[in-house]
């Protein structure tokens, strides 16, 4: 699988980012991005891969998050996705507007569309938009909901993943139609007090849980 990655200095230095955008600009005011073989760059220290982490909360109560056991038996609270190259089809993929209004160069960059190809184990969970069965893609009301606004932290032994956390409203009843994904909505701290946690899920909760919102 080929995944999107940026040279580390491009993500960390506004001037380098500006140069990158200018160097990769296309005639249509979009940017041509570079994808790399995932296995080859997984241990790279100079390429950073954007990583999207989806977490789900019930429509009526955003304090809780959906937790479940992943295939390796660890307790997880979401799905992590690399940004992949253009999909062969839109089925089993979601798309993301990476950015528009590029703040560092002060001019508009038209939305670049990125595709997240889903592993088989996640497909059932994501094919739940009953309103648009023909597309069978993960659906949100507005594409802007999937726009990366800022990254939350670095991840991995080489700090070569920049994680963006995306909370999404989800119905427990719908999720539970897929027995393999059977889980429950849990308070974030209850999740952290558990054992055998997926390490990335644990870090996501520690970062995304806004404890001040649980004060009166």
């Amino acid at each position, binding site marked *: 699988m080929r995944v999107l990655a940026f040279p580390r200095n491009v*993500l*960390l230095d*506004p001037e380098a*980012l500006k140069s990158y955008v200018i160097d990769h600009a296309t005639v249509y005011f979009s940017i041509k991005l570079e994808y790399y073989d995932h296995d080859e760059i997984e241990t790279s220290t100079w390429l950073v891969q954007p990583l999207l982490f989806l977490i789900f909360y019930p429509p009526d109560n955003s*304090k*809780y998050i959906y937790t479940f056991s992943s295939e390796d038996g660890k307790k997880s609270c979401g799905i992590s996705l690399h940004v992949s190259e253009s999909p062969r089809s839109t089925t089993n993929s979601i798309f993301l507007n*990476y*950015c*528009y*209004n*590029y*703040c*560092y160069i002060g001019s508009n960059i038209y939305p670049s569309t990125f595709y997240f190809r889903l592993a088989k184990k996640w497909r059932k969970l994501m094919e739940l938009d009953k309103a648009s069965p023909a597309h069978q893609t993960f659906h949100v009301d507005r594409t802007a909901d999937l*726009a*990366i*606004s*800022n*990254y*939350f*932290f*670095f991840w991995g*032994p080489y*700090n070569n993943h*920049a994680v963006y956390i995306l909370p999404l409203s989800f119905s427990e009843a719908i999720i539970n139609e897929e027995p393999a994904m059977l889980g429950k909505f849990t*308070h*974030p*701290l*209850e999740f*952290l*007090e558990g054992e055998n946690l997926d390490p990335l899920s644990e*870090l996501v*909760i*520690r*970062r995304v*849980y*806004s*404890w*001040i*919102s*649980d*004060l*009166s």
Partner: protein
Amino acid sequence: MVLSASLVRYRVENARFKVAHFTDSLSNTYSVRVEIFFATQDGLLAFSGSLLGFGTNEWYFKLSHGLSYGDIYILSEIPNPNDIPLMHNGDYPPWDALWSVVSCPLSNEELCNLVSAECSSLARLRIYIHNCFALLLRHLPSRLRSCVDAKYYIQHTVNLHGIMNHIREFFYVDRNNCAVWGFLIPSRLTYEFLPEYLLADGSSYVKPVPLEQLLLFAESDLGLNFCIANKFLPVFF
């Protein structure tokens, strides 16, 4: 038992953060900690263990302080942190006992009631956290000045109203059951608090650390990891 030295703790009840009674069990309770990071142009400042006087590390990337019952008392009695005396018998109080410069006449139960009343709402806690932040900011340059040379003039007051809009705040829960309220001071303000000539003279106590070196510590230090992302990773609109 001196309750002033105890950390204020919270427990979660019905998905709400409630102040725990000081006699409650500590299991599944969360203390509150203030963490302050000082940005430079290409990294963060690190402070020597000898300057800060806490812990066993040689260098620290942040000023870290757990909110105690004593802190709440002095900050409730003296709402302006600039009015709190810095020194006691000519010495600086330990970082984890800033409250010890003022004696607390309250009984443990009275102090507990005060903390329960003052720390239960976000609006009130925010005031205490921000005042605690200001108190810590006021201590740092004074201690550095005392280490290097007394000739420097250091501004001893911190005007929160003038700077809070420029300081990034972030929140997380660390692996030691601390609910952390983090502050990232931009480089421009860093050099207002700690002028470059003072940093130059105090290089044994304070040093800039570039991002490449900070990343080596980012996996073990959650606050540092989140702070680095906050400062360096791009923001899109």
